[in-house]
């Protein structure tokens, strides 16, 4: 009976965990989209790169703020080294990470127009990612329900 209860709880927990991760991922994607658009908007203001990154971060203390701090701490860092030194976000998929990694060296460009172009391109790609992800909007609820149903089924079967 106790074993069955434990199995049921584990199954339900897995469903809730998956739902939580999916929700976090959706939130993260929206935040990156907003950050890229903020930076694309600020690129026309001819800001130094750390300020541009902070404009994208908007005081959240997220990865862009860390990137800005890294630039100020190590001003001679190059784009590749800089990207490698940034913390990897595990919730992002490979193609999403790749879109960011392709955009960031564009910020090194000597002209604000090129910076803006790189940011607009990344923001466009990101809109696609969000659209795809929007189709999975019902997933967290589905994962929760599957977890509960699976747990109940396990309990019944094991009893």
């Amino acid at each position, binding site marked *: 009976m106790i074993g069955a209860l434990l199995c049921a709880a584990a199954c339900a927990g897995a469903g809730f965990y998956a739902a939580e991760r999916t929700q976090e991922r959706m939130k993260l994607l929206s935040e990156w989209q907003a950050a890229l658009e903020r930076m694309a908007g600020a*690129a026309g203001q*001819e*800001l*130094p*790169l*750390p300020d541009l990154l902070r404009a994208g971060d908007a005081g959240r203390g997220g990865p862009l703020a860390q990137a800005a701090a890294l*630039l*100020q701490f190590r*001003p*001679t*860092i*190059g*784009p590749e080294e800089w990207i490698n030194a940034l913390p990897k976000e595990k919730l992002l998929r490979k193609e999403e990470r790749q879109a960011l990694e392709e955009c960031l060296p564009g910020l*090194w*460009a*000597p*002209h*604000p*127009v*090129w*910076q803006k172009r790189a940011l607009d391109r990344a923001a466009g790609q990101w809109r696609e990612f969000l659209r795809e992800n929007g189709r999975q909007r019902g997933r967290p609820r589905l994962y929760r329900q599957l977890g509960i149903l699976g747990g109940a089924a396990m309990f019944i079967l094991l009893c």
Partner: protein
Amino acid sequence: MDWHLIVPAGALPAGKDLSRAREVRLRPGQPIEALLPEGRWRGKMPLSPQDILNAAQALTNHGLAARNRELAQGYVPLPGGGRMGAAGRMGENGLLEITSLCVRLPHEIRDAAAECYPVVRGKSTLIAGPPGSGKTTLLRDLIRRHGLDGYQVGVADERGEIAACQGGRPQLDVGPRCDVVTGGDKAQSLMMLLRALAPQVLATDEIGGGAEIGVLAQALRWGVRILCTVHGGGKADLRPRLNPLLGPGGFEKIILLRGVGEPPQVVGREDV
């Protein structure tokens, strides 16, 4: 400025000190080249275009895009004095790509004007010479010495190379009685100094434009002495460009410099 932190490891041998360099040049496919007091020096490792872009970003504290407009107009003043010029692909609104960098660094030689100061003291003086001959170094020491002698000196430091003001303070010694207007249009800065700060001596670097020559001529009419530098080789070469300042009531002395050396090598002092 620690060049070991600006160029990639290997481009500059460990222990090589470029802090006394007056000029550093970076070109793609070529090693770093520096003009040191003892002569030109070249590294061994060729630089990539990305190395040059990274160096430009490091020199401007990652504000290259923000300062592109300044760069396209000629140069970007660097913190602590000096200026960074660049070559590359020009677009409509600035440099789209950077292929070469030339960093000019001011340096002080306190006694650069020791020999010629007694002759030019209190006189309107023009310092002429080719690029790299030490015109600004000599001008700075003349400004300092005039200040020490009690003259109120106004300096229009358009490129930030004379006084290298930072945080409101000159980083290079321009003496105790010096008012500096940094950046901005040279003619406008000179007029501002003339009207607001009542200088007895007005100094500026690399004259040549019509507007500043007009202001300097006006300063001379008001009884202000002027100290200026100009690119050029001799009086005959200068006359077409600086005619209003070379006649009666204009410059009283011309100091001619030659070559690239340290300290500035005076080849002649002429009365005008």
